[in-house]
């Protein structure tokens, strides 16, 4: 592995991933939560693309993989927002803290 270059990309990806995870788990606004998940997936994309060039065995597969990730992320985001809209219509709020109708 071309350690230097790869590791800087990987570090960036790791940071993005952690920010995304933090946001997804702690933010109150549902839209931000969804965005955070997108951030996590994009961190993965960065990782994949970086590793496809600087990995142990460089190959194109990583970039192909990232295409699929992008697609899936798009679908997930689309459905996430759709569900959020349905929820907003029922509940009138997009605050994650208000999603507690089902505690027991």
């Amino acid at each position, binding site marked *: *592995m071309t350690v230097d270059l*790869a590791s800087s990309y990987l570090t960036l990806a790791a940071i993005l*991933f952690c920010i*995304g*995870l933090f946001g*997804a*788990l702690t933010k109150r606004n*549902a839209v931000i*939560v*969804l965005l955070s*998940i997108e951030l*996590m*997936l994009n*961190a*993965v994309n960065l*990782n*994949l693309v*970086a*590793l*496809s060039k600087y*990995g*142990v*065995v*460089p*190959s*194109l*597969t*990583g970039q*192909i*993989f990232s295409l*699929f*990730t992008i697609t*899936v992320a798009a*679908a*997930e985001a689309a*459905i*996430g927002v*759709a*569900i*959020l809209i*349905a*929820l907003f*219509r*029922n*509940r009138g709020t997009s605050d994650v803290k208000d*999603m507690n*109708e*089902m505690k*027991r």
Partner: protein
Amino acid sequence: MSPDTLLRLQVSDLAFLAPELTLVIAAVVFSLVDLLMPRSFNRSAIGWLTIVALAGSAAFVALQLGVDQPVSLLNQSYRVDDFALVLKLLFLAGTAIAVLISLGMKKEDLGGEDIGEYYYFYLPATLGAMVVASSADLIMLFVGLELLSITTYVMVGMRKRVSVSSEGAFKYIVMGGISSAFILYGMSFLYGLTGSTNLLEINAALRESGIDQFAALLYVAFFLMLTGIGFKIAAAPFHSWAPDVYQGAATPVAAYLAVVSKAAGFALLFRLFYTGFFQVGSAKYPLHDDVFLTLAVLAAAAMIVGNAMALRQQNVKRLLALSGVANAGYLLVPIVAQVGLFHVSGYAELVYYMIAYLFMNMGAFAALAIVSRASGHDDMRGFAGLYHRAPATAFAIVLIVLSLAGIPVTGGFFGKLFILLGAVEMKLFWLALVMIVTSVVSFYYYFGLIRQMFMRSGSEESPIRVTPALGVALWMSAAAGVLLGFFPGPVLNGLERLFRFSTDFFA
């Protein structure tokens, strides 16, 4: 990999993909039917057609069973082997029962206006599960998994006017998204360290090169993937979403999540960790052993947490969700009890328990559908006095509950028994103890249902009407549970004959 060297799909290969194609075509056709038919058209027909499509697909799968040499399609990324075929049958059966349960329920409790969509959404979801079972490539695994997940997100949120449904769906999509990200992140490292997304190539690369050089990253990859898969199979400590999501989902959808979705998660885990990490490790970093030790700990945690939390539940859907958490723990045990001198992979045990789990869980949800149709809620007290209102149904539910609790002579009992036997063979005494003690704890809440039905009297005394579809689903599950209990031999022998570790995973 230039395009010229790609192993392309041949027309002759389509025969191997017949089960999947059946579902795709059916989904497309049904969606068009649903679109083009007038409003007066009874959408239940689509439900029945869905069952027909599932049966057709199952027939194709059954025809392929018993392959000597697995078929690899699409540049080695898609495998038709017995491991996958058996699981596919399982998925299809589970889906069919879920659809059957739906057919016995009120339209408003499922998808309301979108009942047509509701029915044919089962097809792509199941297709996703089947792809997961068959794929030997990270990309394919991921795509299959996401097809399943994303479809189920929608299915959970299908009841747009019901607030809990949307809430459950939102929680599900957030947790599902996070878990996908974890799995992907782990996969990206695995890819980076081997330069391939093919599981066999990954395994070969890791074994050849030795892992000392980048062991840390490999461990990171493993734990990331495990976390993600832990979410998907709802194993503790990654189970927190399950009760909420199940409660929000329509009953058959919850059943689908509990059975098919979970089984697909196991297919993923089994294939990924067995093929990917088989005999990978070095003296300094015994990755392979660590992987399975971690899984053992996860199994124990799931069993303990799931059963402990289920004790307090009054809502049956939440209860079943947590029972599903515990069952995820049980199902992990045969995966942990892997290759030893006289024990090769717990595949037969795993699948046997999955079959039993399928029927008992589907039966439990069918029972819930019957009861909540009458009472209008999912609470435990809806079962009160059921013995007086519908004795036969109560009896069937007893059979199902016995199977869930693992009391002989039922499928659930034998499932657990064989899992335990495997664990004991591998000298995993502590895990066996945890498993059995926690399943005794589960008696308390499973028999809670029986207490309600036989020892309490409900607010109403009028007989409960059981719709034919629900009745069939319930009795079929109960009967299957009992049959599996009395005659476990043929099924297990069949599984044992079909599955070959060396060919199914490494050919």
